[in-house]
């Protein structure tokens, strides 16, 4: 008989440009809700969600970090102690992918290689989609985990967080 191990707790940061849907993804994941209203994040908003893996539960402490814009950059101090992060870009705004890639470089320079998932969000807006399949494939070729997601429909959200939970607990 397998004995359940005690729950782990891991800090996960949500990173990306402004208005890419980081807060909406967290709400979808934590509360299974979505709102069309846009409310910008200042500083950090912290949430918690327990994910049941095969052999144990993991408490994900989600740090929804304010998006990066032309004026203010993400404070790297917020990432201290992160086990992994979710990199988010808006699939309808190509410029946000550049912001996400820039952030990834800075995180790696500051904290070393950490597990992350790249989400190309707002996949429900097919008519406005600006990132072609070739670009997504090019990103995957680097070995990254790249997914299309939609906080509105829920596409890819649960799977992305679950995948990250598995990866950040892999060596526990």
């Amino acid at each position, binding site marked *: 008989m397998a004995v359940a191990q005690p729950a782990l707790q891991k800090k996960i940061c949500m990173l990306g440009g402004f208005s890419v849907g980081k807060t909406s993804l967290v709400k979808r994941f934590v509360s299974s809700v979505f709102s069309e209203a846009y409310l*910008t994040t200042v500083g*950090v908003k*912290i949430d918690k969600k327990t994910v049941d893996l095969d052999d144990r539960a993991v408490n994900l402490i989600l740090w929804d970090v304010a998006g990066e814009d032309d004026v203010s950059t993400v404070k790297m101090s917020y990432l201290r102690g992160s086990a992994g992060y979710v990199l988010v870009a808006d699939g309808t705004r190509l410029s946000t992918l550049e912001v996400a890639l820039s952030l990834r470089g800075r995180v790696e320079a500051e904290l070393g290689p950490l597990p992350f998932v790249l989400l190309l969000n707002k996949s429900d807006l097919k008519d406005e989609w600006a990132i072609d399949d070739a670009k997504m494939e090019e990103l995957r070729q680097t070995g990254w985990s790249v997914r299309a997601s939609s906080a509105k429909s829920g596409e890819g959200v649960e799977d992305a967080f679950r995948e990250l939970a598995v990866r950040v607990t892999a060596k526990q």
Partner: protein
Amino acid sequence: MTALPRDVADALQSVTHTQRALAYLQVDGEHRLIGAGGNLDNYGLGAVQLGGQAIDQAVFLEGLLPLPETPFLLPSIELAGGRAADLHFYAHDDSIWVVLLDVTAERDQARRIQQKAYEMTLLQEKERLLNRRLEAANAALRTTQLELEASREALARVHQRVQAELAEAAGYVRSLLPPPMSEPFAVDWRFVPSTELGGDAFGYTWIDRDHFALYLLDVCGHGVGPSLMSIAVLDVLRAGSIRDVDFRDPRQVLGALNERYQMRTDHDLFFTLWYGVYRPASRQLDYGCAGHPPAILMDVDTRSVQLLKVKGTPIGLAPGISYARGTVAVPANSRLYLFSDGAYEIECPDGTTMKLEETVDFLRQPAADDASDLDRLFEHLMQRHGGVRLDDDFSIVRCSF
């Protein structure tokens, strides 16, 4: 640096405590919570218990301990319950003090400003995107317009060429028509091809010294194909060249043509034909009719008319058809008119179509001037049509006996 006087420092602490909802946690080296105080309820931390693991009770500490350096600040952290706090970390006597100061009002103020700025930026991004799409759509539209103009020019060139070919074909048909004659009786005609060139053709010729053949045919449809067929039939009738056929007998002529020009072997073309043979000695006219409008025989003195028509299907519809023959006595001072449906089936501007009776009545009217009744009829039809050109060929032959 001079220290603040005791009473000033106490006043500042009092202000911070009340206005910033000061709260604190004290964590030892084993990450156990060993102290807590202040407005903990403000941050949803009212239930913390000393002695337990700090990160289990204050989840925002996950990953932060131990701190490599202090003091350390994490600004504007929204905790459970929606309050935002600046988290200040200080090391003191082998423990870490986490001081929470409420910045919810400042956070909300910053959010309002940031919200406006982001919404403006998003609008500008959307505007730029829309402009790019608009430019792309305009470019595509310009390309399509150029292609359309090129197609239109090509179409115009083709149209001009077709018109030239049709005019050439009409000219050729006209060259095959016999000239008007005046002896021993007068024969005159008018032939005005339509824009699209119909399949009208006619002719008259002496079969022998006693028999005068006259005919008018109309091949279905418009264009070069029907015109070529009318020329071929005209050639046969002019030459009187069908083996074992007596061209003095309309029944034989119509029957022989029907066997020769079946539509299933002639590109689905068929034609109507009025064919008559006049014997001047006896003033008798034998005639046959293959689905063609009747000829009009008018006594000029009495203005009475006879419509010369016998039953007969158009030529080419089916083989093995027998045609009837009519015979009529031709009064002195009479006129015979042969024509196709283009001489009466005229589309009028009010949507109605002229009937044969109107043409018959028109021809019966005595001429008010010296103009030919054929020209007057054409003018009348043009007026009734209300257009520059008629939709069908106008062909009419008049014999004055």
